[in-house]
């Protein structure tokens, strides 16, 4: 194992701590609970699910606030996951950094779109 701390720390490496792992676990648990919440509302709605039932789930302000939180949690979760994939398989630093930048651009753009959809409802 080559030295990769101190002055030789790899800028595109992990941050050698619990933070990302714990963050990914916590966001996973939050998203799992959110999935069950949306699923429960679909299962317990009466009659066939049309536009009104579906949009109704996200129409209340508390549900919008919660969904917004889940979108942010998703962005962090995916960032850690994709960064792990790049760190495992992509060794050239310039390529790894490029893919990490692409991941961030992709995620922030998707996040902005999702939040816009949510709050113009």
């Amino acid at each position: 194992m080559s030295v990769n701390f101190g002055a030789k720390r790899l800028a595109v490496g992990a941050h050698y701590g619990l933070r990302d792992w714990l963050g990914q676990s916590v966001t996973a648990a939050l998203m799992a609970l959110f999935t069950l919440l949306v699923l429960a509302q679909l299962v317990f709605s009466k009659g066939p699910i049309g536009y009104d039932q579906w949009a109704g789930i996200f129409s209340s302000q508390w549900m919008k606030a919660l969904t917004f939180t889940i979108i942010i949690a998703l962005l962090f979760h995916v960032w850690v996951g994709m960064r792990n994939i790049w760190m495992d398989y992509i060794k050239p630093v310039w390529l790894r950094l490029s893919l990490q930048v692409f991941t961030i651009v992709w995620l922030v753009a998707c996040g902005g779109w999702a939040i816009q959809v949510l709050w113009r409802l």
Partner: protein
Amino acid sequence: MAAYAVFTYLHPRKPKKMTELASKQRPKRPEFRNINAFKDLTTYRLPLAGFVSILHRISGAIMFLLMPFIIWMFDTSISSEISFEKFKAAFNVGMLGLPGVLWKLVALALIWAYLHHFIAGLRHLWMDISHAAINLQFGKSSAIATLALSIGLTFVLGAKLFGLY
């Protein structure tokens, strides 16, 4: 710092020469360098937990790449009744010159990816919490359960998606 990282990548340190401890009469040990993805990896017998692990990664990457499509579905299904009809038409009639069946297949891939990622993720979380779950037996049985549940539920939801019931 980044410039330094590039430098160390381009100019890795040479390994130190063998010391006198490793004398001549010792047989040369076999050296295993990078394994070949096509020649070596295919001969590995991956345990079921290994399949769950790599599928967890693949399903996550699929959802990452299809994220714009997921948000497009969220957008069109929720914005208005007119867009809701557009959403349904994409899967029933087709969109962008592609038949609806193809879009249903993309949706089915996403359904599988979400189910597998969800169940395999719960398995991970449970292993993080429970010390009793950290053993070979649980690793194998929970891997079987994960694969059975995710594939089974994908079939059930896929049958509904394609109108089999």
